[in-house]
């Protein structure tokens, strides 16, 4: 499978072909078992011509007299052989980590990996297509050291959160820049749930189909990213799409993947007491409605007890409501691609269709990707590459999260053990009553019937997206090239959000429609040289880029439907329009010089100057330098036999970042549509603006060691980095009494220090059996150094708040990024919990209760190959972070949590300090209700280890399909998130934050995590 990787490297050849060869060499390349190797790069050393081997491992190349050929293939040791007088040259490549590996670096420049002074990790496209994630960024979890991927509890179609080497901005964007074939693409999150609820409206990276990805390259540090300037201050993920290759006829590849998914049910609520109040069962239907969400009734005894609908049912545990409510989801992905080409051009066309049905009833998404890429050569040395994708995404019913209105998850997890969720479906099975409105089952109008929420609320959006890119590359001489490129990312998002007619909390309903247009155009040029002067090599270029972004929003909302159930904005009584325009531009110039000595010492320096439209005109630019050093010890010195390769690297770089447009002035505007014929106007800024903003600055030092031992059987890649963000542009939370929510300031200082280790071992490698083990570990220590006032070192910066309003996310000086603070038990000097006159715990002060982000991440992958079977599994773990579980807080309030069984008969409750409080048994609910407001009780260690991925594939032997039109068939069993092997938190999944924003560490009624299991079929012919 990995051989497909090489289609990409073959591109190198097309860019550097030469026509003045004088004789022909041909031959066959095989591995040590005699199997033909496809796609091996065959290059004439010192010239720019080359080819790749075909499906029989055969190659043929015209070369000059006295030439040497270099044979290379990822996963194999390269060989360089002098041609001499031979016209046939057969080669056997040995498996091993490729030492002269070529990697894609910033601006799409390919460099020898050994020349780099910083850490780069490549992930092959196959890693994303076997066991799939709908949002491809989520599939990075556990695979790259230092890349922290959060699984957000938003259901399919939700946004990803990928953070490389810790968060580098206190309140700004912390996600990497995604670059597809050299062009940045937008990864804006189009809306998140907050403390008051809402839904995740998806992000930009979710458009990309894993079937089109050749490699994903993670540029982790600032040095790697420095050439991308400001927007790369959080690292860069380069996606290279698949290309065609020279081949006979048209190649066809078809793959099909079908997976089922169901909830990972981590809930363990009490099943001994039923609905009711103060120890009593509901005595009437109105009681059952009033206490419909409270399990403070009597012991479940099987007696007939009246429920919310007036029907008496046995007062006993009805079993698992969650598994009744959530359905089995499915995802079916089908893709097909056509490839072809000759010496002068190649192409690839790909189509992928994905259909998903989510676990929340009536939710799901469809995605269609159409991709094309063509490389062509003109006038000997001019290469043109045209690539583009059209992507259509349709997401149905994005589930509401966090707060209760319209959140089916909230209600599904709030029912006492004796209430069967299916009874809430009502006479029509969709949560409506006889009138077609919401079927009430409790007296809180804001807790929505889950079936009504699923079947009648709408939160749909569709995206039409076009990514396009045209590159002209001209090799003026062998050592001089110039390149120009224009790329565009443009999409339209259409959104409909409906609160239906008959909803309890808004009986006449409301609807909003919006159309959001995004367009970003990047233009760049580059002039470069690559030349050797004896032992000294020079590789340098200068270039420039202009980025223009235009966003336009047109929307409308209306409430109060005139004609019941005609849920169209044109049927609303009160309507308003929404219109917004945002423009941003960055101009940049940059350059890079790499000097090498004898192919073992490399020194690279880069510089980039950015100018932003969003900053004050007199201070809107900043220069970012970087220096990197790579020293290949194993080439410079004689090393012990065991050392195959050893390299030390060190680098230093600075990058910066800007802010959102229009942050500099206090803005006034008009509100609504006026009143009684008069205009309404006033201050519209809810953030206090600043006239003195400067670009933020992010400085990083990185050192690393790359070591391969025992003929590549053991590989160690270690990095240490220390990055500091200064002058961070913050939206500092202000007290509401100041008149503003936040203040835009330029003073934050943040530090991230960490280590990354990648250990690869091949314990067994025989002809038929192969075991590869890859272990990655990263530890990032973040510290908020300084906030608003440099004199004060006790400052706090509010980031987010839980709906319970008892727990908060803060940035706090001297503490890690995103700490959880909340109310504690008031304790006396001896540490005993203080009680009030009623015997209830007294609520104490707000204190630090945990950190929202795991400092440690690890991944362990084992891959076993036996003949044509390949078995692999990935463990993914995170440690040291905490989460505030609002679900558990509500489970206390409602008497659902196992802990609330304490004291129901005796009135005696043992408190966390070991002391006992004594109440009347019917008042025990007051105790647990009070504890609901004490966040300390619900901040728990969110560490976990999960069996993240599992694949078992069987490739039909070549001998078996030789006589068929097929060139490869493989079948696989695949799974994702199969098991939680270790966790500490009660009831919830430790990965349950409901937002992909910076404030991590709050949980509340998200879409449960799912495990998926399915089949994968791949056919090539």
């Amino acid at each position, binding site marked *: 499978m990995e051989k497909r990787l090489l289609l990409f490297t073959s591109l190198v050849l097309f860019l550097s072909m030469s026509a003045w060869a004088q004789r022909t060499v041909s031959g066959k390349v095989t591995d040590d078992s005699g199997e033909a190797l496809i796609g091996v790069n065959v290059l004439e050393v010192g010239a720019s011509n080359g080819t790749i081997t075909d499906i029989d491992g055969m190659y043929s190349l015209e070369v000059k007299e006295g030439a040497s050929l270099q044979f290379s293939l990822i996963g194999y040791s390269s060989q360089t052989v002098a041609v001499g007088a031979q016209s046939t040259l057969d080669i056997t490549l040995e498996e091993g980590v490729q030492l002269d590996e070529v990697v894609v670096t910033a601006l799409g420049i390919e460099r020898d990996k050994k020349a780099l002074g910083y850490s780069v990790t490549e992930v092959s496209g196959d890693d994303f297509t076997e066991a799939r994630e709908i949002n491809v960024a989520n599939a990075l979890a556990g695979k790259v050291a230092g890349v922290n991927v959060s699984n957000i509890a938003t259901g399919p179609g939700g946004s990803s959160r990928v953070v490389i080497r810790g968060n580098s901005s206190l309140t700004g964007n912390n996600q990497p820049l995604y670059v597809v074939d050299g062009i940045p693409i937008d990864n804006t999150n189009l809306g998140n749930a907050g403390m008051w609820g809402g839904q995740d409206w998806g992000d930009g990276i979710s458009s990309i189909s894993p079937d089109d990805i050749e490699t994903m390259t993670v540029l982790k540090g600032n040095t790697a990213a420095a050439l991308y300037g400001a927007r790369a201050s959080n690292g860069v993920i380069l996606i290279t799409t698949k290309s065609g290759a020279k081949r006979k006829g048209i190649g066809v590849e078809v793959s099909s993947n079908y997976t089922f998914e169901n909830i990972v049910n981590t809930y363990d609520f009490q099943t001994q007491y039923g609905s009711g*109040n*103060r120890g*009593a069962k509901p*005595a*009437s239907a*109105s*009681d059952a409605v*009033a206490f419909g969400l409270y399990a403070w009734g009597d012991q479940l005894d099987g007696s007939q007890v009246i429920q919310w609908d007036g029907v008496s049912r046995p007062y006993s545990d009805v079993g698992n409501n969650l598994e009744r409510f959530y359905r089995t989801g499915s995802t079916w992905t089908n893709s097909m691609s056509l490839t072809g080409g000759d010496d002068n051009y190649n192409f690839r066309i790909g189509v992928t269709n994905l259909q998903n049905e989510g676990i929340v009833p009536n939710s799901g998404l469809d995605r269609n990707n159409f991709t094309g890429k063509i490389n062509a050569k003109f*006038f000997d*040395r001019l290469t043109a590459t045209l690539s583009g994708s059209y992507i259509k995404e349709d997401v149905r019913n994005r589930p509401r999260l966090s707060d209760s209105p319209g959140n089916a998850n909230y209600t599904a997890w709030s029912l006492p053990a004796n209430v069967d969720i299916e009874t809430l479906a009502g006479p029509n099975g969709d949560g409506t009553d006889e009138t077609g409105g919401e079927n009430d089952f409790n007296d809180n109008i804001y807790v929505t019937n889950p079936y009504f929420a699923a079947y009648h609320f709408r939160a749909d959006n569709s995206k039409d997206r076009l990514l396009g890119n045209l590159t*002209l590359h*001209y090799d003026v001489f062998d050592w001089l090239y110039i390149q*120009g490129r*224009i790329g565009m990312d443009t999409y339209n998002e259409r959104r409909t959000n409906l609160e239906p007619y008959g909803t309890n*909390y808004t*009986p*006449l309903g409301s609807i909003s429609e919006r159309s959001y247009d995004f367009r970003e155009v990047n*233009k*760049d*040029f580059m002039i470069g040289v690559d030349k050797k002067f004896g032992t000294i090599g020079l590789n340098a270029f200068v270039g420039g880029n*202009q980025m223009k972004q235009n966003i336009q929003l047109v929307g409308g909302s209306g*409430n*109060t439907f005139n004609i019941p159930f005609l849920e169209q904005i044109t049927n609303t*009584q*009160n*309507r*308003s329009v929404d219109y917004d*325009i945002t*423009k941003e531009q960055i*101009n940049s110039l940059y350059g890079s010089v790499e000097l090498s000595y004898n192919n073992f010492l490399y020194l690279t320096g880069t510089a980039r100057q950015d100018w932003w*439209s*969003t900053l004050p*005109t007199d201070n809107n630019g900043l220069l970012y330098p970087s220096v990197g050093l790579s020293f290949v010890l194993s080439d410079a010195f004689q090393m012990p036999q065991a050392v195959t390769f050893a390299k030390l690297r060190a680098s230093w770089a600075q990058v910066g970042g800007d802010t959102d*447009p*229009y942050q*500099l*002035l*206090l*803005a*006034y*505007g008009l509100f*609504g549509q006026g*009143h*009684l014929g*008069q205009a*309404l106007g*006033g*201050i519209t800024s*809810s953030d206090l603006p600043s006239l003195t903003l400067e670009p933020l600055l992010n400085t990083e030092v990185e050192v690393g060691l790359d070591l391969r031992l025992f003929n590549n059987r053991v590989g160690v890649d270690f990095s240490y980095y220390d990055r500091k963000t200064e002058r961070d542009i913050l939206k500092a*939370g202000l*007290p*509401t*009494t*100041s*008149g503003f*929510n936040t203040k835009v300031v330029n003073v934050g200082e943040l530090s991230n220090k960490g280590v990354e280790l990648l250990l690869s071992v091949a314990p067994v490698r025989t002809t038929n059996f192969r075991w590869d083990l890859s272990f990655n570990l990263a530890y990032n220590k973040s510290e908020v150094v300084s906030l608003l006032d440099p004199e004060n070192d006790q400052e*706090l910066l*509010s980031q987010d*708040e839980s709906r319970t309003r008892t727990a908060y996310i803060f940035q706090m000086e001297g503490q890690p990024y995103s700490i959880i603070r909340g109310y504690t038990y008031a304790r006396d000097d001896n540490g005993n919990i203080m009680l009030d006159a009623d015997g209830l715990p007294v609520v104490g002060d707000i204190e630090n209760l945990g950190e929202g982000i795991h400092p440690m991440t690890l991944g362990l992958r084992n891959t076993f190959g036996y003949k044509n079977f390949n078995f692999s599994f990935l463990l993914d773990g995170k440690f040291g972070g905490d989460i505030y579980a609002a679900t558990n807080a509500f489970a206390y309030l409602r008497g659902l949590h196992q802990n609330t069984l304490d004291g129901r008969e005796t009135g005696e409750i043992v408190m966390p300090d070991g002391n006992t409080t004594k109440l009347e048994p019917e008042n025990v609910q*007051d105790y647990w209700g009070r504890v609901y407001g004490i966040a300390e009780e619900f901040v728990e260690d969110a560490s976990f280890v999960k069996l993240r991925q599992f694949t078992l594939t069987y490739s039909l032997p070549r001998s078996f399909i030789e006589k068929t039109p097929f060139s490869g068939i493989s079948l696989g069993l695949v799974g994702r998130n199969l098991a939680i092997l270790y966790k500490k938190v009660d009831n919830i999944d430790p990965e349950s934050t409901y937002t992909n924003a910076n404030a991590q560490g709050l949980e509340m009624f998200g879409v449960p995590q799912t495990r998926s299991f399915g089949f994968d079929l791949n056919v090539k012919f």
Partner: protein
Amino acid sequence: MKNIFKKLFLSLLVLAFALQSCDDFGDTNIDPLSANEINPDFQFSFLQLRVSGERYENWRTVLIYSSTMIQHLAALPTYWSGDKYLYNAQYSGSLMERCYQQQVLQSVDLINTLENKLAAGEEVANKLAAARIWRVAMFHRITDLYGDVPYSEAGKAYLEGIDFPSYDPQSEIYADMLKELEEACAQFDAGQPTYGSADFIYGGDIDKWKKYGYSLMLRLGMRMTKVDPTAAESWVKKAIAGGVMDSQDDSAKVPHTDGPEGINRNGIGEVWLADNSQKMSKTFIDWMEANNDPRLDAISYVPNGTAQKGLPNGYDATTIKEFLGLDPTAELDMGQFSAVNTSLVTTASPMIFMFYSEVEFLLAEAAARGWGGDAATHYNAGVRAAMKQYGDLFDASAAVADADVDAYLAAHPFDGSMRMIGQQHWAANFLNEYEAYANYRRSGFPELVPVDYPGNVTSGKIPRRLAYFEGERANNPDKLDEALQRQGMPSAFNQMLTVPMWWDKQ
């Protein structure tokens, strides 16, 4: 040679392709949709609606807390915290949470703009005077609900760089508000332009604004009768001398319409679209019934069509059955309880800030205290205005005939007591709940019987204030703690409700 030209040509082609139409920023960072200043008329219009408020705080602090604590309304659900003296952080702090951004910020900005214009010689005296009076109307509600609050430094993060405003002692807030009223009333100038129809309250009528200003002075002066009777007397006399409201038309109210957006609507009317749990309090219904009050059938109706029956405060869906003598398994019929006349407050009803009737009761009280005037005359005028105000100002369905008022007054002649004035004052402030709650705490009338619901945070006493917005503990802790210490208040929010404020001297 040919080769060189070809190379040059192709190189230029590649470069021209990438460099075409590169340009500088121009006005990229100028937001095309906003301005850097605003017409003060637009801002005053906006501010009037903002102070009238949204559903959010009208639901929470006006209805859930004030109206039930004062026993105008009652409700069974336990989230109606004020009905049961429970503490709900989000409801208790909601006015404070919203008003500084939505009201105070705009008010401070408007006054700053007008002061700058005045200094530049523009004729804005009337606009500034009205804005200053409206600022007092806005701020006294905040301090009357919470005690010491940010006042002199509030909403000034942009103008003066005050990110973390201090809390001013209530005594100083009162002193400044009274000074502001005095200065503003003297600032009006009949020769200068007004807001005209941008002023929804009085349509730019400066005489009415002056009366409103002095009436507020009367209200705030009277508020100090317990803590500083001398100052109270002096301000009350000054207000009366200035000229207070003397007709129903003088009442201060913001008109609303049903949409098109939330800001246009009456916030209380909007609540009643979603929440029907509020009923007329048994205390209020019983008092009207006992006195044959003609208001009873005007402002209250019974959905079942049966006899008027108030809902007692302090009960939930279970305990009310015991109260009614019902079996626990019986269904509870909420239609038997009196509810607010559905036409009285809708989304298009005005929001009341000061009834003329209130002024008459304040004058009656001043007379009864011996500060001049005839108490009985003012009492009778107050009762008449109070009985007719819902029909006159809100909806014709709530109209009360003069003959019925005459009969009532004849049956209940004024006996000179503070109790009678206080009871009528309480009834007259129905729908002006913040003021009803404040005046009750000052006057002690009517003699409400507190409830004692399990788990209440006041040991069964009517709260003396609401607890601050808890977000201040997180975002402005130093200034909050300073205010708590100064007022001798506990740091636990749920224990704050029993602490009397400065003017509520026990």
